[in-house]
């Protein structure tokens, strides 16, 4: 019996952070439809993401000494230098930065200390926006190139 609506954000996060998670997502949906709670589901998703990130951190990655392949490097060296936008917010996502928040905090502190709720609401909105942007970001084209110890030993 279907008595739950599956949290789409949970599935989106699972698909974003856990590679090849289709079977796992199917298992979670199956169990959720059979009556498991939302807390159970989120716990499973969080654990799966944590396990995946831990596994990824243990994977041996080759050193990437140059940013581009040699053929690309030659081609790029002939181009004129172009200005690139700099992410002053130091955030991996353009548009989600800290400078706006800092300036708002300064404004509230100096000009309108009684309007502290404005700062709090902005901070919460910023965090929510960041989470949504991360969840909706398209997945990367494929897993990173890795070398396993047994393959390297051959």
């Amino acid at each position: 019996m279907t008595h739950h609506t599956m949290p789409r954000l949970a599935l989106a996060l699972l698909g974003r952070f856990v590679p090849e998670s289709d079977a796992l997502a199917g298992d979670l949906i199956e169990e959720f439809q059979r009556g498991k709670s939302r807390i159970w589901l989120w716990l499973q998703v969080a654990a799966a993401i944590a396990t995946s990130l831990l596994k990824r951190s243990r994977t041996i990655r080759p050193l990437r000494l140059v940013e581009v392949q040699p053929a690309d490097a030659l081609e790029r060296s002939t181009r004129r230098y172009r200005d690139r936008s700099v992410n002053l917010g130091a955030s991996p996502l353009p548009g989600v930065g800290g400078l706006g928040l800092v300036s708002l905090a300064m404004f509230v502190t100096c000009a309108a200390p009684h309007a502290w709720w404005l700062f709090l609401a902005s901070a919460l909105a910023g965090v929510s926006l960041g989470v949504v942007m991360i969840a909706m970001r398209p997945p990367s084209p494929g897993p990173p190139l890795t070398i396993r110890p047994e393959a390297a030993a051959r």
Partner: protein
Amino acid sequence: MPRRLLTDFELMLVLAILRLGDDAYGVQIAREIETTAGRRVLLGAAYAALDRLEDNGLVSSRTGSPTPERGGRAKRFFRVTARGVQAARLTRQALVTLWQDVPQLTEKRV
């Protein structure tokens, strides 16, 4: 090559797959471990361990057909390979050997 012994969780997964036979997929494996061994299983952790076992050639997997109750996602069925069975036997043998002649673990006969 040194013989590969299984961790306790890997051993439970292998035994659950062997008990389930052809119907061994994520949910069923987790349920089998929970009902028979009383251990709660996180599905993500189970899949990570199963991936590791598959990388080592101890289990193999195949993808089933997508079903609507799973949101159109297919089941991944697992099977223990001959190497997996051998690894389970070796692990059991090692545990039994360790268990023997330990006075604290000797059961008192009434």
